[in-house]
């Protein structure tokens, strides 16, 4: 599938604009600011959510390509932030083979 051709015709913001707004409001709420301080010792920075909302709206209203690119950059950055750690274990390619096997009903565990 030629992804690049289809994306320019059918691109939508990764989240709905309402979602960006609700994330912004949640970020700025007293409860969240408290939790953030409790977990990280700092105040949360919420401006990015507001920028994302504004870029999202700009795209929805005017198909502003600058806004689209800014939004994509912001979200890619968020994804990268979530990957900033060296995993302790190796990921599986398949689920564990015994996940769905029935339980052993009789007798004590062996091996």
């Amino acid at each position, binding site marked *: 599938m030629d992804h690049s051709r289809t994306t320019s015709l059918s691109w939508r913001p*990764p989240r709905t604009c309402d979602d960006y707004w609700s994330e912004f409001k949640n970020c700025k709420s007293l409860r*969240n600011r408290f939790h*953030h301080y409790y977990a990280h010792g700092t105040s949360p920075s919420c401006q990015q959510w507001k920028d994302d909302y504004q870029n999202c709206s700009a795209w929805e209203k005017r198909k502003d390509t600058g806004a689209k690119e800014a939004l994509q950059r912001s979200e890619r950055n968020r994804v990268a932030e979530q990957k900033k750690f060296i995993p302790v274990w190796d990921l599986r390619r398949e689920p564990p083979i015994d996940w769905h096997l029935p339980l052993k009903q009789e007798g004590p565990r062996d091996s």
Partner: protein
Amino acid sequence: MDQSKQEEDYGYDLFPERSQGQQRKSTLKQSLFTFNHKCRVMLQLAMETSPYAKLLLSAMKSSGCNIYKDRHFACEDCDGTVSGGFDAASSQIVLCQNNIHQQSHMNRVVTHELIHAFDHCRAHVDWFNNYRHLACSEIRAANLSGDCSFHNELARFNFGLKEHHQKCVRGRALRSILAVRKISREEAEKIVDDVFDSCFNDHSPFGRIPHSKKDAKFAYRDYMNRDRYHANL
């Protein structure tokens, strides 16, 4: 291998019903008015209403580990004050029916154990031999399940504010390891320290540390939206 030694080494002695095999016979009276019934009702409610649990259940399904309540959960009597456990050998989550009496506690235990199950499903976790793996999953479970929320810590009379969450996560991970493995406190502390930065920052499948039910709802919303999200990055 000497089975009783294995049981002690891996913490199975906390879950005495596990080594007797699964006994399912009970009268109707026993069925309705027991801790077992209450446990199963609370479990059902947790799976249906907790956004933490719903997200984990979806994520596990996507990873090929569909959860069937009757197969993957067991309500049992346990020793001491332990609330639950994940048995990798049988791919089952144990809920301690004699120690979980409130729905909010059930929600939290289910979330905590589902995080272990999720880790088991998506990664080669060597639960029995690699203490770093064990520590990592415990750090993640304490971090992401709400175990270390301000209110829960307050209820334990652990008062702290700035970055207390992290202190709590370290402490609970340490306790969990010491409860099921025979190593010294110093050794366990070193292992937790070693893997803390990596595992504290692994928020999968939530995408964030859900500090409240609202955060968990947002995380669930994001998870349900993930196809659109990744298609438009």
